[in-house]
């Protein structure tokens, strides 16, 4: 199947430029506004700018590294084992989760050792993001992109960090907006989650503008 990937990549257009990968990952194909992933923490943590920053940064770092790790494992370990009866498609789910969980644990330990300050601004969010759908989703979409758009290793790197950056951007924007409208008049039924969803919808509409940036 690795050969099929190479074949696909060669037959379709050459792997898209890194800028396009970045723009589509962060803006047009935004993992939160277009793909609906990572909403739980997004809705609850976007209340304060400071925590939004910490969470967003954590998500970006973890998504970037785990995308690359998962890519390497998928291509060089899981796929070569397919002829031996190992169902790559089904097992990749669990493989990715294990990698993400492991990486997050590792990162938490490392940050705690290096800088307590960093730990308090970033590290405390780490346990929360092990099950953030966005991170697993990014890895799953990465596999789709490798098969469907011929992404290679560098593309995946940019894609991983780009997708995380897109999530980061979305949560920062939301925190800023919520900060601004705090104290505004919101109907009782819409307070909290309701109004945040409406704002998210409007942001999603706004982000579709970026589709014009990519000319196929």
């Amino acid at each position, binding site marked *: 199947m690795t050969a099929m990937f190479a074949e696909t990549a060669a037959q379709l257009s050459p792997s898209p430029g890194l800028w396009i990968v970045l723009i589509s990952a962060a803006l047009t194909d935004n993992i939160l506004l277009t793909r*609906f992933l990572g*909403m739980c923490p997004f809705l609850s943590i976007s209340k304060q700018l400071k925590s939004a920053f910490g969470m967003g940064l954590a998500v970006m770092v973890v998504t970037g590294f785990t995308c690359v790790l998962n890519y390497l494992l998928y291509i060089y370990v899981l796929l070569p084992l397919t002829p031996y009866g190992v169902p790559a498609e089904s097992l990749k789910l669990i493989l990715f989760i294990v990698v993400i969980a492991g990486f997050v644990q590792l990162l938490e330990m490392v940050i705690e050792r290096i800088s307590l300050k960093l730990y308090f601004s970033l590290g405390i969010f780490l346990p929360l993001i092990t099950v953030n759908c*966005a991170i697993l989703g990014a890895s799953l979409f990465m596999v789709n992109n490798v098969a469907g758009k011929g992404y290679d290793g560098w593309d995946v790197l940019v894609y991983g960090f780009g997708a995380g950056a897109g999530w980061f951007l979305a949560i920062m924007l939301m925190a800023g907006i919520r900060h601004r409208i705090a104290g505004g008049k919101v109907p009782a*039924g819409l307070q909290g*989650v309701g109004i945040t*969803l*409406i704002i*998210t919808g409007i942001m999603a509409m706004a982000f579709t503008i970026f589709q014009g940036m990519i000319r196929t």
Partner: protein
Amino acid sequence: MTEPGKTLSPSRALWTQLWQENPIFRQVLGICSALAVTNLVFNTALMCAGLIWATTLSSFTVSLIRNYIPTRIRVMVQVLIISAYVIVVDIAFRAFFFEAHKDIAAYVGLIITNCIVLGRLEGFAMKNRPIAAAADGLGAGLGYSLILMSIAFVRELLGFGTLLKNTPWEVHLLTAWEPGVTETWWRNWTIMVVPPGAFFVLAIAVWIARSWSLRQEARAEAGKPSSSPGKPEEASA
């Protein structure tokens, strides 16, 4: 959330999950993955079936071996168990619902990290007996499905004008059966089939539910003997 340590009978657990603690209404948990598939009713139905299956059976399984799971690897084991059932669903869909599976494959996988499923395992299944845990999982799944199906109903109807599109039971309620040959007065609301539409519909659903439950709470307050006298009944809008 149910009080920890208190074991509930299966029927009470089911009922509590389904309405009073309906996750979507109260905490809007786990909407992530599933919102993307709500532009078509059939895809949503499949997704909900998968979720109900995964939540019920993994609650049951986790509860069954709850006393043997080491604390340290607790979350990983829970995730592994959920994955097993989700993979079963994925394989089943690929075999029997090939065309729909193409659209929803990525999101079926994401059931594994669905906050609701994990929430029920951690919050209930680890502390209760298998049958009760299964009922709790079933209730959570059903409550979740109720919301998603409602959203999908609205989105597909307004966005495509049909219901159960791409199935043998497709009905065209608003658009013509032969577009191009005959037309109806209806113009599809494309916003409903793209992501922003899902956010708006969900926001409205939350608004309705919250307003309703706030009104219930206010009524309950007014009914209590300790509430301030002379408080007028809330006029229904």
